[in-house]
């Protein structure tokens, strides 16, 4: 009954909108034929502008997109904005999203393809006070373990399962807020934290015992990259359907090339990127953003097979964890393997070739190696 009411309301609303709108612009901007002036492109982020997205911001500010004929508009995320959905609905041309979450959306019908794996490693930690002695996933047994839920928790659950624990019975699971006060006040023993954000926040909090800020030595960190349960995170996603269009293929290649150039710039000019992020309106503070850009760089570089290239082993591990790790609700991320169209290295390879060709002809970019260093 309620559903039909909602649907009718939605239909009525949709009709009103259609009637009120004098014109409806075509989906996205990228399908416009390349004519005069730069091509408008919309990039949907997962969250507000911060160091996590410094490379894209730098590519806009430094003109790396403009050099390739792109006028990129960066759309910020919000609490209820799902980037891969925005992309699938055609309101953006590209989106940044974590691989497991985007694959889950893909399984439910979102036509999206991973075209460049910017973060080569996972940035998810499980952080606890050093005196608790939690240095491996097995040590979590009997502890109060914080996790974010909403699809952010699967590396933790896979890690605990791999260590022989049954997450539902061997630990007390606690839904964690987006700040770290529960960890600092001792309400939970181990908290989920991104290396580039929440871990920095605990190091920016004053330690009441010393009056100084907490030190890294006060904490022990479980890094899921070391336990074999890490999953791939920030990637550039494109519309699967539009990738059949040669114009969009070309657009994708140019967008990836500009993005990688932006990230290379942030690798070599950390402070400049910090300033750009702060100027873009982040309120987290300059020192926090410097930490964030530094930590994000560690997730991107070194890139053994080239920046943005999807590593087959890491992809396979992500899919394997997504299919087997069971969360507190008894769910896995994926119920079957994603099809071949879920990821492709075609465009990132073309972009890297373009960048190499540019580097050999231009003295300005010759100093920027695209391979790892």
């Amino acid at each position, binding site marked *: 009954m309620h559903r039909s009411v*909602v649907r009718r309301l939605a239909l009525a609303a949709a009709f009103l909108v259609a009637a009120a709108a004098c014109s409806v*612009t075509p989906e996205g901007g990228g399908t416009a034929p390349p004519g005069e002036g730069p091509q408008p492109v919309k990039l949907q982020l997962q969250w507000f502008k911060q160091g996590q997205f410094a490379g894209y911001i730098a590519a806009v500010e430094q003109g790396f997109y403009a050099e390739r004929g792109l006028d990129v508009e960066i759309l*910020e995320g919000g609490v209820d904005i799902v980037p891969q959905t925005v992309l699938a609905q055609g309101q953006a041309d590209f989106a940044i999203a974590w691989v497991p979450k985007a694959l889950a959306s893909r399984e439910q019908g979102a036509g999206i393809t991973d075209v460049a794996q910017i973060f080569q490693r996972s940035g998810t930690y499980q952080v606890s006070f050093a005196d608790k002695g939690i240095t491996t996933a097995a040590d979590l047994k009997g502890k109060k373990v914080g996790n974010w839920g909403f699809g952010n928790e699967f590396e933790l659950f896979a890690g605990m399962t791999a260590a022989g624990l049954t997450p539902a019975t061997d630990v007390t699971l606690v839904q964690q807020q987006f700040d770290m006060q529960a960890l600092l*006040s001792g309400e939970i023993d181990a908290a989920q934290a991104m290396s580039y954000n929440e871990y920095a*926040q605990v190091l*920016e909090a004053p330690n*009441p015992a010393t009056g100084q800020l907490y030190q890294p030595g006060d904490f022990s960190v479980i890094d899921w990259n070391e336990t074999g349960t890490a999953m791939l995170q920030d990637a550039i996603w494109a519309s699967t359907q539009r990738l059949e269009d040669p114009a969009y293929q070309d657009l994708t290649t140019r967008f990836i090339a500009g993005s990688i150039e932006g990230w290379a710039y942030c690798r070599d000019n950390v402070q400049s990127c910090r300033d750009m992020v*702060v100027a873009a309106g982040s*309120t987290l503070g*300059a020192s926090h953003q410097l930490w964030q850009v530094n930590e994000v760089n560690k997730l991107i570089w070194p890139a053994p097979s080239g920046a943005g290239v999807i590593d087959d082993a890491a992809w396979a591990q992500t899919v394997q964890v997504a299919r087997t790790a069971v969360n507190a609700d008894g769910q896995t991320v994926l119920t079957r393997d994603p099809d071949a169209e879920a990821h492709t290295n075609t465009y990132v390879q073309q972009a890297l070739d373009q960048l190499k060709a540019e580097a050999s002809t231009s003295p300005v970019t010759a100093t920027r190696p695209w391979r790892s260093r």
Partner: protein
Amino acid sequence: MVGRARGVGAAVVSFVLLVVLWELAKLLLPDEGVLVGDTRVLPRTDEAAMPHVWTVFGRLFEPEVAGAADPRTVGAAVASGALFTLGLALGGLVLGGVLGMLLALAMQRFGLLERAALPYVVASQTVPLIAIAPLVAGWGGKIAIMGWSWQPWASVMVIASYLAFFPVAVGMLRGLNAPAKADVELFRTLAAGWWTTLVRLRLPASVPFLIPAARLAAAAAVVGAIVAEISTGTRGGIGRLIIEYQQSATGDPSRLYTAILGAAVLGLVAAGAVGLLDVGLRRYRGSVR
């Protein structure tokens, strides 16, 4: 005049009482709060969870972002955010108010419409806001009205109006149907048409119902605007500040409280704006029974 002064006095006293209560809680309750078994009955009272009132007020005058080129204070940021959100909430209130009144008029005029539409009006409020917000936010970049392309703030205003129209529609409908049967029959005896009856009888009679409805709608519009800002990440308003400051609340808890303070003041100002409407329509208060 004396009544006004007493009202202001009461407001000041209640604020001071709140501050005293807050500080007493910090002083008397243990830092870890009070737990019965595993259930928390009283909150933690340490500096991170409940900063001192003066720490929060002091934070208002410190720079918002450490190390930024723009030396804006937290107070200025909160004030500009609150003003931005106030504008959107009032816009949503006007939009929702007008829609609600038109709907109420139509429902009063056509009984069939009332029976048909009222269940949907009620159902509209049971749809969770967080389900609608991304939908409306998705209009951005897709819709252009007379050459004006949809802006993110317009989505926030529409969501605010979605919450505001409901109390107005229901209250106004009640008010339009409020006149006593004898009065309505008198108008009919005098061969007054629907329009005359509306203007001379029903509209004045609806005022005592409309004012409290508008007050509810103003509060709903503020809540709607803040939630929509949080949900869609719209830059510039107090909702965005709350979520941004919450992110860094681990090391800087008092800044989050400044934003919450701003949101509270915002709600009071919006309710006060409706009070002005009350003053303007005072002569209709209790005019028709």
